[in-house]
Each structure stands twice: as structure tokens, then as C-alpha cells.
């Protein structure tokens, strides 16, 4: 019985996390110039887990599509963006496929 609260907490944590995080969305400060932002793609595509990258100046967003079952630690993501010259505000993992996110961005939706 003592272990019941632990089990419940674990279940709650699992329920709050995306079932299958396929995309990492990062809110980035200083993202105003596409020429200067070329380094973002270069840095993020170095990770073996990266399948694709999109950058949106309008939404101040950088998104990475992950390869199946893979991930990139937050510390590595922050280091990559620092190396590209930018500052990461937030990092979020979502089950939204990158194609869907790209379509949303093309329609001007955050």
C-alpha cells in the first residue's frame, strides 16, 4: 500500500509527458536575421538524432524533428544554440510532426 502514491505519481508524470515526442520546439531570443541564423541549422544537424530542422523568425521558433526513438539532451540543445549565437528561452517536446508544424507556421499560426 505504501507504494501506491509512488505509482500514482509515476502514472501522472507519464500522462503529462508527450507519449511520443517527435519534435523539439525551442523559443529563441535574438532571432531577427535569416543570414545570421544559418548557423542554427548547421549546429543542430550535427546531432545524429536530428531528422530535420525548421526556423521561424516570425514565431522566434526553432524546431527539430527527431529520428525514431531518439532524443537530444537540453544541455546539448542550449549549447548548440549558443554556438549559433542565440539564447534559448524554452524547450518543449511535442508529439506534433514537423510537417504539421511547418504547415501551421506557413499559415501564420504559432
Amino acid at each position: 500500500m505504501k507504494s501506491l502514491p509512488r505509482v500514482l505519481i509515476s502514472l501522472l508524470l507519464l500522462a503529462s509527458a508527450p507519449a511520443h515526442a517527435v519534435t523539439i520546439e525551442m523559443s529563441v531570443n535574438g532571432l531577427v536575421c535569416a543570414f545570421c541564423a544559418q548557423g542554427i541549422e548547421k549546429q543542430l544537424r550535427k546531432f545524429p538524432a536530428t531528422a530535420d530542422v525548421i526556423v521561424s523568425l516570425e514565431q522566434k521558433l526553432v524546431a527539430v524533428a527527431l529520428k525514431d526513438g531518439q532524443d537530444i539532451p537540453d544541455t546539448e540543445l542550449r549549447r548548440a544554440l549558443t554556438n549559433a549565437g542565440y539564447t534559448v528561452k524554452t524547450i518543449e517536446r511535442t508529439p506534433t510532426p514537423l510537417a504539421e508544424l511547418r504547415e501551421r507556421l506557413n499559415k501564420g499560426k504559432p
Partner: protein
Amino acid sequence: MSRWFVGLAGAFALAGPMSVMAKPIAFADGYTVMAEYGAGTMKEAQLFYAPRYDFSVGGGHVELNSDETAKSRRINYARLNYLVHRWNLDDAQANVFAWGGLGSATGNTFSGTLLAENAGAQADYETRRVYGSLKTDLQRSSAFSHRIDTLQLGLAPYKHEYGGVATWFLVQARQYTGGIHHGTESAVLLRLFKGGAWIEAGVTNGGKLQAMAMFNF
């Protein structure tokens, strides 16, 4: 040289964040190649490699030809660029850079090859629609001293997006010291960039071509 270096960097830091978009440091593990034609009085080419996001090393060649006299200089230099500070803001970015280097100079008002010293600083501020930059670059030797100060202000007619073509309209004011050009040379410029390629061209108040191309990779 260190006295100038600190003085110039300090002066621009105090001037506050202005803006220039032609930055001497691209990104970590990135290259910057730049060539500029400055109205016949200045021609310059540079190549820099950035091992980190906050400094780059490389070199360049600059030619200065006076439009007042027959004075000319040819300078080759090795240079280190340093990002003194960067502000990554919600809707803007601002930077202060400083640099210094050594090289060799030849010219038609002295004999032989002289040791040349180079120091400079740049401050910039940019949003997706507005930017400004202030840059100073000093080349000197025992036989000459030339400083080139450049102010650029720009407006974008639309907010460009990553992957698209960016368009900027600029005004530029430039002053040379050491008898290269008398007074302030002004220019209007059109700047376009897409991906890692950047070109700009325009005309000065003297009717001469002012142009620049730059590539980051």
C-alpha cells in the same frame, strides 16, 4: 596598439548598441568570406574562421587609393575578431565587436614593406525592420595612419523569413582620415540576402559604385 584598441572598443561600447549586419564572426565552426568595393578609394577582401561563436581568426587584404592625391596603400593582415558582448532580445539583437591584427604594408609614399597594425570596433542593433551600425577600422604603420569610420542605417520594406529573400534599403556615411578622401562620403544602398549569401550595391554622392558581397558557410 593596445591603447587604441581599448580606446576604440570603449568609445563604441559607450556609444551604445548601434548595428551593422556584416558581422566578422558567423557562428561556431563557420566561415565568413567578404569582399567590398568602396567607391574606388577602398577595396577589401577578408576570410575568417570562427572556432567559437565569440571569436574568429583570419586575414584580409585592403587597398586604399586617395582621391585627393596619388597616395596609395596595399596592406595584408592577419586578424582576430572578438565578440565583446551580445544582447539577444525578444525582438532584436545587438552586438559589440572588437578586433586587432598585424600585417605588412607597401605604398607609393614610402619605400619597402612596413609592419602594419590594425584595430577596430563595431556596434550594431537590428530588428527585422530596422537596423543601425557604427564601425571604425584603423590601419597604421610608421609611415601612415588611416581610419575608416562607417555609419549605416537601414529599413526593411517587409519582415523577411528564414529561407526567403531579405531586402534592405540603407544610407551610409563614411569618413577617411590620413588624406584618402576629404569630407563625408555618403551612399544609398540596396541589400539583398538569402541563405548564406549576401550582396549589396549602391552609389555614393560622388556618383561612384559602392558594393559588397559576403558569404557565411
